[in-house]
Structure formats: C-alpha cells, structure tokens
C-alpha cells in the first residue's frame, strides 16, 4: 500500500467577523492523500476549497482538527524543525502567475529564493545549476533565467511558478486554481507538464479547481466541497459514474461539454441549499461502496440512492 503523505482529520477553519458572527469556512473536513496521488477538490466559489489549501500549508491557523504531514502533526504550534519541514516539503502554486511573481526579481532569483532561505546549496554554481535543471524540466530554457516575469506569456509564467515549487523537491504540491487563468490550449500544456512531473517525482498533488472536466482528467480521488463540507468523496470513476449527492449531480450536469448535440438539449439541474431542506451539520459520512462516501442522514441517503 502506498504511503499516506497527508492526512487531514476533522479540520475546522472558522473566521470570527465580530462578536455575533463567525464564518465557518471549513467545517469538519477529513481526507487523505497518498504518495504520487492527485486529490481534486471541487466546489463553487465560497465553498472553502482555497481555505482548506491555505490551512494545510499553514497560511491560516486551523481552528481545530489535525493535519498530519509525513507523520508529523502540523496543525498546532510548530517548532523550528517542523516549520522547516513544512516550508520545504509542501509547496503551493497560485492562480494568477503574474500576481505571485515578484516583478522586480529575475526568474533565476525567484526560483532560487527557497534554496536561498533554507541554504540548500554549497556554492553559487550549484544553485544556478539547480535552477537551470528545473527550468529545463518545466519546458523553459537556460537563457530564460535572466529575464523578468513581465517578459513571459501567461503559460510560461505559470511554468515559472511550478518550477519554483518543484525546486524544493516537495512531497506535496497544492495547486490552487493553477490553470483557471490560462487559455484552453495553454491549460493543456500545463496540465501535461504537471502529470509528467508527477510521474517522474511521485509528488502528491492537492488540485483545487472549479473546472470539473480538468479535475476529472487529472485527479485520482475527488472531493466535492460545498459550504465548507465535503458532501461527496471517492475515486474519479466512482464520483462520475455514480454521483449520489444532489449537489454533485448539479455540478456534473452544469459542465458544458463541447458537443452541441448534447448541449442544446440539456438543462442544468439546479441545487439550492436553502430550499433543499438538507442540513449538512446533521448528516453523517456514509459509505456507498469502495472508497465512495457521501454526507447524508439515513433518510436522505435512502432517498438519493433510490432516485
């Protein structure tokens, strides 16, 4: 059995707005990612998918719950050693490649910044050599190293973002909407690159996106998130072949497929939480089969399965 890289247990992330009002952005989320696996997290905006990513990499302090990364609990107070491990072995790729690259630094220095901070080289030659290798790996060339981010196109910038994450040789990469801002043809290039890298390095990915067709393509396991709850989780085949939860169904019917014949006839199933009468807080995780879970009360489950 493959090694589990990341285990998230009952993660809760609340944001207190004022005395009377607390936003429960992530409420009781549990999942795990194995080595070399891609976990796709899908949901609408505001469902808490980015918050989960950010809580795991500790850009937020989780309200409660456990995050176990490489056997270490990293959800509480971190000591220096844990912090170092977390900052090296877990990396993030952001949505907007222009906003996350320092416009005043050369690509060489942007990519090597992590190495600099953690002093992971003995001399400058070794440092530059590492950067050149990584650039090569993500499909850029050596001469790109001395340019600035604005001299690149969107797809190339995203490659720089990926190179920056990869150079630390991480065990887990969190890709937060990493391809949403790119054009279709460029998206495919970046996705292929991520797949290739995963095969070579056995890095695990947490892939956060709202584009289900891309998620389906890249992920091994999918979690469907709505209002801070994972309403359904399972392998890609299980979710797509046999969606149980009405929200998952509405997501699946909403994806526009590039096929006019099908698309003209199709009417998307609407799902409105307020009028659906479903309360996520009282639902329990129910096993459908294999690794396929759905969040439901007993009655709801019976009703959905019989549909």
């Amino acid at each position, binding site marked *: 059995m493959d090694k589990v890289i990341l285990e998230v247990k009952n993660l809760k992330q609340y944001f207190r707005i004022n005395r009377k009002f607390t936003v429960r952005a992530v409420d009781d989320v549990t999942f795990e990612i194995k080595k070399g696996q891609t976990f796709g997290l899908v949901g609408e905006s505001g469902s808490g998918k980015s918050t989960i990513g950010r809580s795991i990499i500790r850009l937020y302090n989780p309200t409660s719950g456990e995050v176990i990364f490489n056997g270490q609990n990293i959800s509480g107070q971190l000591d220096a050693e844990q912090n170092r491990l977390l900052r090296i072995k877990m990396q993030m790729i952001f949505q907007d490649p222009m906003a996350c690259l320092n416009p005043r630094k050369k690509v060489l220095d942007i990519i090597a910044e992590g190495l600099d901070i953690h002093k992971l080289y003995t001399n400058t030659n070794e440092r530059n050599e590492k950067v050149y290798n990584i650039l090569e790996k993500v499909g850029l060339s050596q001469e790109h190293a001395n340019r600035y981010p604005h001299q690149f196109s969107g797809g190339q910038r995203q490659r720089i973002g990926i190179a920056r994450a990869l150079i630390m040789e991480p065990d887990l990469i969190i890709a937060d909407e990493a391809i949403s801002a790119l054009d279709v043809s460029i998206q495919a290039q970046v996705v292929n690159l991520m797949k290739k890298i995963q095969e070579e390095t056995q890095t695990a990915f947490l892939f956060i996106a709202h584009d289900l067709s891309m998620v389906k393509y890249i992920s091994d396991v999918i979690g469907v998130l709505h209002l801070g709850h994972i309403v359904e989780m399972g392998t890609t085949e299980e979710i797509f072949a046999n969606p149980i939860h009405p929200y998952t169904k509405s997501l699946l019917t909403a994806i526009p*497929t590039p096929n*006019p014949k099908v*698309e003209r006839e199709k009417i998307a199933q609407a799902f409105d939480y307020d009028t659906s009468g479903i309360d996520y807080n009282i639902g329990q995780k129910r096993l459908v089969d294999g690794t396929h879970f759905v969040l439901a009360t007993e009655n709801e489950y019976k009703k959905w399965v019989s549909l």
Partner: protein
Amino acid sequence: MKILEIRDLHISFKTDNGKVRAIRGVNLDLNKGETIAIVGESGSGKSVTTKAIMGILAGNGVIEQGSINYTWEDDYSEEVGKIEGKTVDIVQLTKEELQRDIRGRKIAMVFQDPMTSLNPTMTIGMQVMEPMLYNYKMDKEHAYQKALELLELVGITNAKKRMKCYPHQLSGGMRQRIVIAIALSCDPYVLICDEPTTALDVTIQAKILELIKDIQKKKDLSVIYITHDLGVVAKVADYVNVMYAGKIVETGTIDEIFYDPQHPYTWGLLSAMPDLDTDDSILYTIPGSPPNLAKEVQGDVFAPRNKFALNIDYRLEPPMFDVEGSNTHKVASWLMHPNAPKIEMPKELKHKIAKMLDN
C-alpha cells in the same frame, strides 16, 4: 434579416513597441434572432472586434479600414420616428451620433466581471433605471416599473426589495443578472456578451447561459458571444467564428465547426479541451504560443504552430476557401486549396467526433 455586417475590418494599436495590428481583415455577419460565437485564445482580437462595434476602443486604437454596418429596424426617439431598413456605418459615425443612436440603445454589452461593471455607490434599482432615464427621458415611475419587470425577467426573486440593494450585497451570479438587466433596459436589438460567465461558477454559469437564451427567444435578440470555452459555445451558438491572431480562420454553423472542422487550429482547439470522456494519457496541445502582432507577418500567421503547414503558408496569406457542399462553412487555410495535399484531421479527434455523434 442581416442586422450587423462587418467587412474587412482592420484595427491597430499604437504602442511604444510600434504598431500592433490586432485585427487584420475581419468579416462577420449577424442575422436577426441568431447567436454567433467568436472563439479564440486571449490576444486573438475577439474583444477588440466587439469593442469596435460599440465604439469603445482604447485611446490608442485606430480603425484603419473596413466597415461595420448596422441596419436599423425602427427608432424609438420621437424626433426621428420610425425608420426601417436604413443602414449606417458605425465606423463613420461621430462620437455623439454613436452615443445617441447606437450604444446602449441598439447594441448593448455584458462584460466579464460583474463587480467592476457595476457602480458600487448606487443601488441596483437606480442602475437599472439609469439608461432608460438617460436614453429615453422616461419618467421615474415608468422606469421603476420597467426595472421591476426586468429584474423579474432575469430571475431575481423579491425584486422590489432588491432594487434598494447595493452591488456588494449580492452574489456573483446575481450581479451578472443585474448587468444583463441593465443591458436589456433599453430594448437593444444586439446583445454582445464578452465572456459573460468566465468569472462565475459552473452551476451559475449554466443558469446564466440558459437565462440569456430564454430572453433571446422572448425578445428576438441577436447575440454575439465572445468566449474561449468551447463548452459554452456548444450550448448557445448557431454560428461559430474561430479567430486567430486578428483573423477569422474558420467560420460555419455550430455543427460544421464541431463535427466537421477543417482548419488545423480548430482541430487543435477541439482536441485540447478534455471532455468528461477523455482518458488519454496526455492531452493534445497546440505547440508554441500565439504570435507577436507588432511584427510584420509574412504568409499564414498560424504556420509556425502548424505541423501541416505547406511551403506556401510561409509566403502567402491564405484566402477564405469555401468548404464543398456548404454555403456557410469557410476556412482560411491553404490546405483547402484544390491542389493542396489531402490532409485528414488527427485520428484522436476523428475518434472523439465519432463518439460525440454517437451520443
């Protein structure tokens, strides 16, 4: 009836790096009640084309040649009365004429990001009423009534209460509905939707697209969609124009483009998009990246990215060839020339299309 007709449009932008020829000879036809889609990568000039129609090009943009003919159906203004069948060239109109007669009244636009296209300091009710007060000098009560109707039309519940809301109090999907309501407030004949759902979630996207379709049927609108999402195109369009580097490279009915594509770029676009049945190990990609239009291009701009490129592609720009057996399907590629070698679309794509037709 042809309501909008663009002929040989050339637009360039003056920049520090020289002249960028963003649009290089675009032809476009829009009939009444029809939907056309313009598809292409970012930087291909889809937005620029529609901005030229609205007369809202950026300050450094110049229309170098060509015409955009709008055919009048009637006129609301009391002074002019009803005119039918009159055709004006939007390019030749002065700013004032454009603002008075066309923009907003006849041709309205829905932009990508609903948050930046709404005024955060005005109630949405006021924002929906504003164009009517301004364009038709309607009195406030009438405008209020019509605004209420519009909000109900775009599917906003509890419209009376919502009239008093500010944009930040609404969700993204609601905001986009408001923007659509504003665009419809002056009863336009042409609605231009510039990536109307890119900023929205899939579930809301589907609802908004269905909404626009619905309204189109009710009001007999002509709609121009700009998008890079082929899924959206498949859902809404009657005709598709594929744009690359400032030119339309393939045009045809939706079935022709999706089931019988001829241009290698269209092949690439269709192959690159994974649908829910894709399970190949790697996705097809179009190699390279879009050209820099500031440089003078010789021959076909797509040639460097085209593995089927012929020698002539590097020397001469291809004209529009008619596809045999169709009077709507046109392709700008030398591969369509009778003397060109017969090149079939990639196997994978053929397979994909066969599967689509099976469904």
